[in-house]
C-alpha cells in the first residue's frame, strides 16, 4: 500500500514540476502577491496632501500649522485665501484635508479661552478619512499639551499616553505580511489540491488511475500529500521573506507556528479535495476554489476586524479555518504566544480539518462509485 501511494505522490510532483505553467503558478504569483501586499497594502498615512486656510495668521496658528507641515504623514499642497476655495480643492481631490484656523485663534488662546480649529476631510473613502482624522487629532493633542506646559496652564485632567504593544510603531506592514502568510498558504494549497483530480478527469487519465488496484483512500492520500508538502514549502518561503526582507519580528517559537501551519494545511487540503471530487472540469474546480477563498479571506479578519461584523456574520467566521490560522500566525510572530494561549485556536482548526478530510473521503468514494 505504501509503495503504491508513494508512486502516486512521485507522479503528482513530476506532473506539477515538469509542466512549465504549473511550476510558474506555484512559485511566481505568491511572490508577486507578497511584494504587492507587503509594499502596497498599508494603513500608514504617508505625505497625504492637505491645504491650509489660516484666517488668523498669529504665532499660535503658525505653530500649529508648522506641526502639520513637519509631520511625515502630511504634505502641504496649498494655502487657501478664501472660504469659497475649500469645496473646490476637495472636490478635485487635490487634498484630503483642509485645516481652517479661526480668525481669533491666537487671541483666544492668549486670553486663556478655548480656540477653534476646523478639519474638513474628504470622506469619499471612509477608511482614509478615518486615518487622516486620527493623525490630525494626534497633532492637535500634542499642540494642546505643549501649549499648556509652556504657559504654565493646568493641562487636561487626564493625560492620554498610548503605547502600542507588539507593534510599537503601529506599522501596518507587520499586520499585513503576517496575514499574508495565511492567505498565500491557502491559495497555493487550494490550487494544487482542487485542480489535481479535476485535471485528471478532464484529461481522461482519472479512469486509467481508477482501474489500477489503488483504493479511493489511497488516491486521496496520494493527492493530499503533495498539497501538504507544497503548502509547507510555501509557508517557509513566505515566513523567511517576512523576517529577512520585511523585517517583521518573529518573536515566538517555530514549533508553535508550524503546529498551526500543519493543522491549517490539513483543513485547506480537505476543502481543496472536497472541491476536486465535486468538480468535473478544471473550470469548475477553479470557480469552486474561488467561491471558497474569497469569503474565507473576508471573514478571516485579514483586513477588517471580525468584532466589527454583524453578529450572524461573526458566527459564520467560526467555520473559517483562516480565521484561527491568522490569530495563530500573528500571535506567534508578534506576541510570541505559546501553545497555552493558542490552544483555543488550534482545536477548532483541528476539528475543521477532520471534518473536511472525512467529507472529502466520503465524496471521493461516492463520486467514484
Amino acid at each position: 500500500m505504501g509503495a503504491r501511494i508513494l508512486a502516486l505522490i512521485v507522479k503528482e510532483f513530476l506532473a506539477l514540476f515538469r509542466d512549465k505553467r504549473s511550476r510558474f503558478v506555484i512559485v511566481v504569483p505568491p511572490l508577486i502577491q507578497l511584494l504587492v501586499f507587503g509594499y502596497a497594502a498599508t494603513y500608514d498615512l504617508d505625505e497625504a496632501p492637505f491645504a491650509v486656510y489660516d484666517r488668523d495668521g498669529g504665532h499660535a496658528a503658525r505653530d500649529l500649522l508648522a506641526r502639520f507641515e513637519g509631520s511625515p504623514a502630511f504634505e502641504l499642497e496649498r494655502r487657501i485665501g478664501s472660504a469659497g476655495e475649500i469645496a473646490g480643492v476637495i472636490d478635485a481631490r487635490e487634498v484630503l484635508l483642509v485645516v481652517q484656523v479661526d480668525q481669533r485663534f491666537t487671541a483666544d488662546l492668549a486670553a486663556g479661552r478655548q480656540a477653534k480649529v476646523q478639519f474638513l476631510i474628504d470622506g469619499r473613502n471612509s477608511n482614509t478619512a478615518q486615518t487622516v482624522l486620527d493623525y490630525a487629532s494626534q497633532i492637535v493633542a500634542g499642540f494642546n499639551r505643549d501649549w499648556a506646559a509652556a504657559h504654565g496652564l493646568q493641562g487636561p485632567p487626564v493625560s492620554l499616553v498610548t503605547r502600542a504593544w507588539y507593534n510599537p510603531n503601529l506599522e501596518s506592514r507587520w499586520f499585513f505580511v503576517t496575514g499574508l502568510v495565511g492567505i498565500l498558504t491557502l491559495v497555493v494549497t487550494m490550487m494544487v489540491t482542487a485542480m489535481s483530480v479535476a485535471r485528471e478527469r478532464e484529461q481522461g487519465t482519472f479512469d486509467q488511475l481508477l482501474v489500477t488496484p489503488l483504493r479511493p483512500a489511497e488516491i486521496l492520500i496520494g493527492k493530499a500529500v503533495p498539497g501538504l508538502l507544497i503548502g509547507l514549502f510555501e509557508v517557509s518561503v513566505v515566513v523567511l521573506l517576512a523576517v529577512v526582507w520585511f523585517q517583521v519580528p518573529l518573536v515566538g517559537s517555530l514549533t508553535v507556528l508550524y503546529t498551526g501551519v500543519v493543522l491549517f494545511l490539513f483543513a485547506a487540503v480537505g476543502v481543496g479535495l472536497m472541491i476536486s471530487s465535486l468538480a468535473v472540469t478544471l473550470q469548475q474546480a477553479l470557480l469552486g476554489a474561488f467561491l471558497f477563498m474569497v469569503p474565507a479571506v473576508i471573514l478571516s479578519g485579514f483586513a477588517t476586524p471580525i468584532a466589527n461584523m454583524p453578529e450572524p456574520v461573526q458566527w459564520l467566521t467560526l467555520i473559517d479555518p483562516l480565521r484561527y490560522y491568522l490569530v495563530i500566525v500573528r500571535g506567534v510572530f508578534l506576541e510570541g504566544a505559546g501553545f497555552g494561549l493558542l490552544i483555543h485556536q488550534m482545536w477548532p482548526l483541528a476539528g475543521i480539518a477532520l471534518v473536511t478530510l472525512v467529507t472529502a473521503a466520503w465524496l471521493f468514494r461516492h463520486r467514484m462509485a
Partner: protein
Amino acid sequence: MSVSPLIAEGLRKTFQSAGRTVTALDGLSFAMVPGGGVTGLIGPDGAGKTTLMRLAAGLLVPDAGRIHCIGLDATRESLAVQAAVGYMPQRFGLYEDLTVQENLELYADLQGLPPAERGARYARLAEMTGLGPFVGRLAGRLSGGMKQKLGLACTLVRPPRLLLLDEPTVGVDPVSRRELWAIVYRLVDEEGLAVLLSTAYLDEAERCSDVILLDRGRLVDQGPPGAFSAPLRGRTFLVRGADASARRALQARLAAHPGVLDAVLQGEAVRIVTTEAVAPDRLASGIEATCEAVSPRFEDGFVARLKDAGAPGELELPRVDALRRTPGDAIEVEGLTKRFDGFTAVDALTFAVHAGEIFGLLGANGAGKTTTFRMLCGLLPASAGRLRVAGVDLRHAAAEARGRIGYMSQRFSLYGNLSVRQNLEFFARTYGLRGARVRERLAWAFAAFELAELADAEAGALPLGYRQRLAMAAALLHEPDILFLDEPTSGVDPLARREFWGRIYALAEGGVTVLVTTHFMEEAEYCDRLVIMAAGALLAIGTPSEVKAQAARDGTPAPTMEEAFIRLIERREAA
C-alpha cells in the same frame, strides 16, 4: 461546371512542435475531379489530411505552393473562400448547452444567412438529418451519431459550394454512419455539391467517386476506387484451415510468408493478398488449407499501395503469458443491470467470456455498450446482478480484481507531460511491481513496443501510433489476465490497426483474455466471439459466423458483418 473545385499546386506546410519541425505537406499537387460527387481523402495517420482541409478552408497559410478553392485563392481570399465553403472539423464546435435549434440559429447568424431564407433551410436540414423531433433537445444530450448530424447541419446552414468533411464518421456506429452517408449523397444529387471527405474507414472510400491517397504529405495515387483494387485481380484469396480454432496461427504463418503482402482474419478464414498472381495451390503448399480466389476490395489496394510505397513493415510481436490462469470463465455476467435516474441503460445482461478468447462488444451509439464496459472494469457500480472478473467478485474485492486487468481507452489516458519512462514506472508501481521486477518489465515494454529511443520523450508529444503503443505497454506491465480495450482503434489508420491487431493476436495466444469494443465491423471479424447490444439488451451472441448466420435471409445468404449488424438492429426495431 468544368473548373475543379479544389486545386493544390506544390503545397508545402511545416509545423514547429517541441523543437522539431514536422512536415505535414511536402509539395502536394492534385486537382479534384470536377462535376460534383464525393472525393475521398485517405492515408495513414500523419499523412497531412487535416492540414490539407484546413489549408483549403483558408485557416492556415502554406509555406509554399498555392491552393485554389472554387476558383479563389484560399490563402489570399480566405474570407471569400470561407463564405463559399462548408468545413466540418473532426471535433465540430457544437455548443452543448444550447438546443439543436439554437445551435442552428447561432450558425445561421455566424454565416450571415438572411432571415427570410432560414425557415425553409431549417425545415430542409431537419428533414434531411432526421433531427426534426429533437430541435428542442440540448446538443450535449444527443448521441454521438446525432451530434455529427447536427454538426453537418450547422455546416450546411448556408448552402456551400464545396463541403470539406474531416473524418465525419469517427466514433459513429454503423447505422448512424449509413445515415450520414445518405445525407451526403442527397446533397451531392440535389444541390450539386462537391464534397471532399477524409476517412479512416476504407469501405467508405469505396463509396467515393474519386479517391486521393496521401502518405507523409505526398500524393501516392488518385483515381476511382476501382482503379486501386484492379491491379490486385488474381492476387486475393480466402484461405481456410482445417481447424477453425487455429485460424490465428494460420494467419500468423501466412503473414510471415514472403509471397504474402497482407493477411487478415475474416470469419473462420484468412484473407490474403499475394505479391504476384499465383495459383492458389502453390500458396497452400506446406499448409493444410483450402484456397479460394476472391475479388479484391479497396482495402487490399490501399494496403498494397502503401506497402509498396515503403511504409514500415511487420513488427516483432509482444508475447505475454498470463500469470494466473483463472479456472473457468474470465468474465461471468449474470443479470447485470444499470439504472440512471429511472432510465435503464443496461437491462439484465447475462453472458460469459471464456479465458483466452478475444471477445467483441458491439452496439449502436447509446445501446449500453460503454456502460457495460465500464461496469466490467470496475469504473461504474452495477445496480443489480452478479459480476465476476478473473474469478473475483467485483463488488467485494474490486481492488483485487482491478489488479488482474489491464485497461486501455480510446482517448489517450496517460500523463501527457510525463516522459514515456515516467509513465511506465508510475503504472508499474501502482500495480505493485517493485525493484528489479520494475526494471525487467520496463525493459520488456521498451523492446516489445520499440519505445526505447523515445524513453525520455514527453508522452503527450508522441505521434498517435506511438502513444497507442505506450498506452498498451502501460496496460500490460503487470501481465494482466484480462485486457479491456475501449474502441482502441478509433481514428487509427488501417495499417496501424493491422499492427495493433497483430499484437492482440499475440496476447490471446499467450492466454490473455481480451474484451474489446469497436465500431469497425471488419474488426468484429477478428474476434473469437462477440455480442451485439441494442437498447441495453443482448441482440446476438456467438462467433462472427454465427452472428452473420442469424442475420442471413433469402436475398443475401452471406451478409457482411456490417450488413448483419444493421439488419439485426433494424429487425429488432421493427419488432
